[in-house]
């Protein structure tokens, strides 16, 4: 099946200079199957209209496409369709939670929002492996409320160091925000253990699911998290769309951040009342075509099977790790057993930018830089790394072409 589905992704036929393309940058953004592209065409050619606002037939069609998207997401990650709020990306979703808590702490949202109030005696806990999207918003919240920002450190093998979990997450902790899977190390974190500790101290759990939802079966209800965020573009969907998932009573109580049309019940010149979730977080015209396209992407993922995708990528991860081990002068960042097909590494004597450039010259697309995780790179003593990340459309040949090119890097730059 995996051999066949490559044909569904037109971009994989592209050539880079003389070379065929081996796209190993799905951790940044995934490619799209033709059916997702077709949904865009169909939407704009046949049903484009503003949703939720009109009686006319196009608007009804568009609204249906839009609301069906929520159903598709709920089928993918669990929960009810009303628990699915559309955002522009995962970053906005995480900000909505952090900024909603900030607003609650400043008296917005009335009594219902009191549960979210943070102050100087409280703490927020993140981890040292967070993407900036799940770090900077919490720094801002800490700065605004006076709450203390703490973090769980990362071990040499690229796993969370939970030896001090009980002292870092303590009775002062009101929010525990962490990533399900590291976008650099590929490590899958022990959600159950962390959620259990959060429950002991009564902290809300915010899960960054950007790197898990596209690559493995995930059910937020089973994981028992309070909020979760991910982006459509990393899961075969379009750019411009993310998801904030939450427990209904929490979403309904959280003060909205962006305000405007379609999220209000009554507006006078003096003030406004807000709708319950999901609409309260969906101010203004929404990315409707993108939602329709994402629903198609979810259908595609479901047909292939997330379990199967996970196994397929594990296999590719094995090829990558075994192959890299044979090339001298490469240090892999993160060697956890429990992982996805994302492998970041440092090439002794050659800067990541130069590594990436050389690989690109051979048609191998990887990512270089800090991958929006500067503190994690600092932890490993580097400012930048090179990252190869797989997805369902990659095959052993992609890995082989990557390994062949990687072996040439140090000789090309005359390092031994």
């Amino acid at each position: 099946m995996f051999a066949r589905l490559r044909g569904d992704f037109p971009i994989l036929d592209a050539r880079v200079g003389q070379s065929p393309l081996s796209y190993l940058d799905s951790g940044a953004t995934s490619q799209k199957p033709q059916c997702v592209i077709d949904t865009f065409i169909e939407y704009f050619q046949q049903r484009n209209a503003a949703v939720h606002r009109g009686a006319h037939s196009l608007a009804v069609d568009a609204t249906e496409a839009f609301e069906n998207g929520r159903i598709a997401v709920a089928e993918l990650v669990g929960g009810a369709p009303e628990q699915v709020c559309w955002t522009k990306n995962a970053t906005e979703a995480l900000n909505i939670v952090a900024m909603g808590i900030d607003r609650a702490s400043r008296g917005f949202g009335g009594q219902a929002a009191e549960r979210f109030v943070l102050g100087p005696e409280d703490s927020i806990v993140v981890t040292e492996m967070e993407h900036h999207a799940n770090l900077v918003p919490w720094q801002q919240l800490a700065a605004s409320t006076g709450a203390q920002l703490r973090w769980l450190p990362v071990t040499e093998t690229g796993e969370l160091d939970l030896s001090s979990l009980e002292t870092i997450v303590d009775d002062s902790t009101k929010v525990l925000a962490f990533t399900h899977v590291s976008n650099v190390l590929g490590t899958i974190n022990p959600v159950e253990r962390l959620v259990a500790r959060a429950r002991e101290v009564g902290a809300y759990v915010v899960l960054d699911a950007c790197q898990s939802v596209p690559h493995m079966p995930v059910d937020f209800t089973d994981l028992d998290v309070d909020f979760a965020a991910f982006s459509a573009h990393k899961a075969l969907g379009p750019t411009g769309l993310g998801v904030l998932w939450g427990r209904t009573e929490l979403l309904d109580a959280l003060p909205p951040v962006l305000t405007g049309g379609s999220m209000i019940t009554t507006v006078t010149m003096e003030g406004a009342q807000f709708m319950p979730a999901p609409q309260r977080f969906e101010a203004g015209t929404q990315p409707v075509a993108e939602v329709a396209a994402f629903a198609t992407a979810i259908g595609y993922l479901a047909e292939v099977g997330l379990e199967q995708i996970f196994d397929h990528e594990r296999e590719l991860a094995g090829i990558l790790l075994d192959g890299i081990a044979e090339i001298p002068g490469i240090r892999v960042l993160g060697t956890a057993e429990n992982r996805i097909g994302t492998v970041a590494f440092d090439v002794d004597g050659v800067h990541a930018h130069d590594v990436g450039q050389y690989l690109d010259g051979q048609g191998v697309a990887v990512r270089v830089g800090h991958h929006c995780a500067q503190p994690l790179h600092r932890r490993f003593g580097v400012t930048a790394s090179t990252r190869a990340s797989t997805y369902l459309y990659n095959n052993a040949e992609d890995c082989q072409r990557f390994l062949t090119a990687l072996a040439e890097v140090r000789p090309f730059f005359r390092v031994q």
Partner: protein
Amino acid sequence: MSTPMEQLYQQVILDQSRARIGNTDLLRDSAQAPHGSSHQVNPTCGDEIELETELLDDDHLAVRWTGDGCSISMASASVLSELAAENSVAEMLQIESAFHELMHSRGTMEADEGILGDAAAFTGVSKFPARIKCALLSWMAFKDALNQAQAAREEKHHA
């Protein structure tokens, strides 16, 4: 064969939307019997209804409402009030649930006129997803208000 417009706007609906049965001043706290009231807004168009339910005795109730809206929502409130005058509390709950089901049937259901009475005239609405909310607005208010009235009665019993 009638056009979709005529199926939607049955004569009953046009008539009831003008009749506005039950559209009178609310009693609010001057009501004698256990009562409840509910305010519902359709955020799309700003249509709103405030509806009051009074439990006259264990079996009967009175409905009053004020509000403003399209012919579907006004006719629906009117029919609801008419039915409330003719049916027991238990029957009204049955009608409410049958009406709810009918509205979400996307035009695939035959309305049971025996249960629904004049409310069966709304069958055509279920084919117009944007209008279902209009038809349900007063019924949502009714269910909410009735819950409150029943809670008030419970309290009275226990007091």
